[in-house]
């Protein structure tokens, strides 16, 4: 039997996998680093590393930035330098001890040591200035937006160096939501101008420094951005929702990029979830997408679910499909 890592490689290269990859099983996620982004506790609020107030109200599935006049960081994009300050990524060696120990304990023949970065360049722009203002600014103040993006890229490269120097990761799991369920937030042309160079630089740096795999999370529609994803060097697009018509994407791009998802979290991960609903959706995804260039999994990012038991049940249903299809 192939190891989890070997099996994933077979899926990605169009070779001979011996089973479906079960969601994140091939990735040993390094989440306890001193530079992992901070999030508020459920029901709480924090001011994050960039000065953005982030709240996680009880009953919500995630945290949200606060953009009322009192809390918004960038009020005038032309004066962004006055208010946006890059957080330091320098931390004591002691603070890296837990993550280093975890990385060293991973059998790299079995799994990729995988570092995690969030929220991402696009999301950071609207964390700092609100979604509407950011989206209008791409038209109204493009130079300022380019400068802001370059600044955030500079930060991400510093972050990357710390991860690489301390953990020697094999893979990067990078979050940045680029669309709604039905379309990308910005046009492919605008995306190509503002974000393709940024990510090419970041992902290129990781790959030049030993990272083999770039997994990009965007639980959205983003089929129109796949050409840019290829240009950036993304190996796996995680979070690909059914609205993207994943089987068609696989036909068109399989061999150049692997798709991870096709099971929308909103359909399987809710308070009244059942094994039957999960089973139906896993079966459909596996049968329609096939064994190559595809990893079945919930669209939500990371190896967790919003409601207890869903992630594990999804894994079990993927095992069931392996027993039928392999």
């Amino acid at each position, binding site marked *: 039997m192939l190891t989890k890592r070997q099996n994933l490689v077979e899926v990605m290269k169009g070779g001979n996998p011996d089973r479906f990859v079960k969601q994140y099983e091939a990735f040993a996620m390094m989440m306890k680093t001193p530079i992992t982004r901070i999030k508020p506790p459920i029901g709480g609020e924090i001011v994050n590393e960039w000065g953005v107030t982030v709240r996680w*109200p009880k*009953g*919500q*599935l995630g945290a*949200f930035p606060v953009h009322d006049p009192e809390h918004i960081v960038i009020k005038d994009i032309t004066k962004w330098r006055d208010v946006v300050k890059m957080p330091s990524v320098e931390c004591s060696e002691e603070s890296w001890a837990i993550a280093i120990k975890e990385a060293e304990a991973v059998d790299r023949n079995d799994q990729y040591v995988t570092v995690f970065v969030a929220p991402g360049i696009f999301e950071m722009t609207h964390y700092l200035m609100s*979604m*509407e203002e950011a*989206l*209008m600014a*791409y*038209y*109204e103040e493009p130079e300022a937006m380019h400068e802001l993006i370059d600044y955030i890229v500079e930060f991400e490269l510093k972050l990357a160096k710390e991860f690489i120097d301390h953990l020697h990761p094999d893979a990067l799991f990078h979050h940045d939501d680029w669309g*709604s*369920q*039905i*379309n*990308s*937030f*910005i*046009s492919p042309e*605008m995306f190509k101008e503002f974000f393709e160079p940024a990510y090419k630089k970041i992902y290129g740096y990781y790959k030049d420094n030993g990272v083999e795999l770039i997994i990009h999370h965007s639980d959205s529609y983003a089929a129109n951005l796949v050409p840019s994803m290829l240009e950036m060097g993304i190996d796996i697009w995680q979070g690909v929702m059914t609205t993207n018509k994943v089987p068609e994407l696989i036909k068109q791009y399989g061999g150049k990029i692997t798709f991870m998802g096709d099971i929308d979290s*909103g*359909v399987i991960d*809710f*308070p009244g979830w059942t094994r039957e609903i999960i089973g139906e959706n896993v079966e459909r995804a596996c049968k329609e997408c096939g064994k190559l260039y595809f990893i079945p999994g919930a669209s939500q990012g990371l190896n967790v679910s*919003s409601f207890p038991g869903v992630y594990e049940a999804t894994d079990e249903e993927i095992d069931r499909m392996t027993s039928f299809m392999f």
Partner: protein
Amino acid sequence: MSKIDEVKAKVEIGKSKLVPGLVQEAIDEGNSPEEILQAMVESMGVVGEKFSRGDIFVPEMLIAAKAMSKGVEVLKPLLAGDGSSKLGTCIIGTVEGDLHDIGKNLVSLMIESAGFDMVDLGVDVPAEKFVEAIKENSNVKIVACSGLLTSTMPAMREAVATIKASGLKGFKVIVGGAPVTPEFAAEIGADAFAPDAGPAAVKAKELAIA
């Protein structure tokens, strides 16, 4: 090209710095403020259709709406009547338990552009707050409930049920959002469903005029 056609064209492509001047020129040319306003409303209708087709994206819709609002600022002092819109008031909010607002904000922009006065209740709106808002505002013609999460669909059901059970009359309820379907809208007793911002404005206008 007439000045009104120029106004229409520039609103459609979001030239908010040019539109105020062009609106003034259209006024100086002898066009009534109401005609110019209607022209801008039509532009936003085109924008809504293009957005629904996927020909344009959120930034293009936002800058078009901003261009129109800049044009309306020039017209407002000149528009006849008591300042309230011909179409009435629309109350909009994202239902309880849901903090997503970008879709709701786009719908609000488009419905306002169509000629409504907007009362935006924000996000995470309890059912009773929709009812309170109907009572507190005059000439309410549309109540729009938005939701992005499958897990907050029960809250949308409750919002519509509470609004309908209130006994208040004279308005219609539209629902929308990513997990909302026409079948779900009908099941929960909403008067209409809209898949996104463009059709929402069209439907709101239809319901207000009917």
